């Protein structure tokens, strides 16, 4: 293959993905603040620009103008690596996430596995930040994040296995192709369509709860609990180091909701079977993100014990039962 053409393609793909992730991260912060405002019956940021739309770039400028400080006694290499690592998994995940049948940077036939492998790196960034900051609050946050990540990765992967068993593929494009058509063909819809899907709404619920926990979103944001840990793992970070953690959180949400859309909501398929395309994918992703923001401003933060209890006592047993029953359904029908 022509080397320079390949290089060109790679550069274009990387630029588009980085721009997509960064824009999403920046404007989801705005959406979150506006949404939070509305739910609390106040306007939210509305001074800078129309509807406060200039707020994210101005916040970015303000953060960049701040001095980057490395606390004494910190592990300098890990301290610098942690914020980069917060953004990195989200960006690399988008390499294999298809936006439509044709719009994908690089499709590989184990795309699903690849995304989960990268997503697991996300908690590493929190571990690095907590470990290297030389700060007891950051350390506690890192410990919490790891125990949370271990607890929720299990039910999440078990429920993903149910989807993989039904579609028989780890290729994200193939998983969506099998759901193409109107809403009754989607994995989440249990009746009329595929009879194997009987437990899928349940799988979706478990997957959604786990993806909230995996992305450290409220009510599971125990690793940045202000009231107990001051700010959590990013306590020692200022300037763009903090900015990257902040953006990384939103970028990971986009990855999580994209996966939920691909696995359960038919990806780029239209609910009425008309004009499938990238717009349907984006509509579904943003609807899920809106739900996540809505959840955050509805529920108070849970505690670390109830968080772990929820996973080990409820989600893991239920997801195992779900896996067994789905295997049975596959065998019977």
């Amino acid at each position: 293959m022509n080397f320079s053409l390949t290089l060109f393609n790679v550069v274009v793909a990387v630029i588009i993905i980085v721009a997509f992730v960064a824009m999403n991260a920046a404007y989801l912060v705005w959406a979150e603040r506006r949404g939070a405002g509305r739910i609390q019956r106040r306007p939210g940021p509305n001074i800078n620009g129309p509807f406060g739309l200039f707020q994210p770039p101005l916040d970015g400028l303000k953060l960049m103008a701040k001095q980057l400080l490395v606390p004494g006694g910190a592990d300098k290499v890990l301290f610098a690596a942690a914020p980069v690592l917060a953004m990195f998994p989200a960006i690399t995940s988008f390499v294999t996430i298809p936006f439509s049948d044709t719009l994908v940077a690089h499709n590989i036939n184990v795309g699903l596995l690849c995304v989960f492998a990268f997503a697991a790196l996300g908690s590493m960034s929190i571990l690095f930040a907590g470990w290297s900051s030389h700060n007891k609050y950051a350390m506690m946050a890192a410990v919490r994040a790891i125990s949370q990540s271990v607890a929720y990765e299990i039910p999440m992967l078990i429920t993903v296995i149910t989807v993989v068993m039904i579609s028989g593929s780890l290729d994200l494009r193939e998983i969506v192709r099998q759901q193409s058509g109107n809403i009754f063909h989607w994995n989440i819809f249990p009746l009329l369509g595929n009879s194997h899907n009987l437990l899928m709404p349940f799988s979706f619920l478990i997957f959604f709860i786990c993806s909230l926990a995996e992305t450290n979103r409220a009510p599971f944001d125990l690793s940045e609990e202000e009231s107990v840990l001051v700010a959590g793992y990013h306590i020692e970070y200022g300037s763009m180091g903090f900015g990257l953690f902040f953006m990384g959180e939103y970028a990971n949400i986009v990855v999580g909701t994209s996966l939920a859309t691909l696995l359960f909501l038919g990806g780029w398929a239209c609910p009425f079977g008309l004009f499938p395309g990238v717009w349907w994918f984006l509509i579904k992703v943003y609807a899920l993100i809106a739900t996540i923001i809505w959840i955050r401003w509805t529920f108070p933060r849970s505690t670390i014990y109830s968080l772990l209890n929820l996973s080990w006592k409820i989600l893991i047993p239920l997801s195992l039962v779900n896996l067994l029953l789905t295997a049975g359904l596959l065998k019977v029908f």
Partner: protein
Amino acid sequence: MIGYFQEIFTGLWSLFVGMSISFKEFFSPVVTVEYPYETVTMAPRFRGHIDLVPDENGATKCVLCMACERACPSGCITIEGEKKEGEKKKTLTLYQLDFTRCSLCGCCVEACNFEAIDFSKEYNLASTRKEDFYFDLLKRLQEKRQ
């Protein structure tokens, strides 16, 4: 076993109830006031610092009986007056309030039999200098008249 599932179900149900509440709030009108651009009218019983009340001509009603100065437990009020040529009564020349010590107790307002002082509705009071809180109330009254 039944209790286990019941707990899950009631827990999940309560989450949906909570979400329906915040959904309704999302579409309800905003209740806050965008403060520097909009302000609320102060409640009638709001107590700002005291202020001289003008009569119909805009002049002070104060007759220099000194009841307020004596009533003030913190000694915030300083009143001076002089007798002008051809006038029977003294006229007020200085009514100073030391707001740094005022506790807004209202004893001065109560003590005045001539309704010459009342609480103002002023709440935008901020300064880095102590001197800014020694108010010359007579001057405020004259400025208000203009």
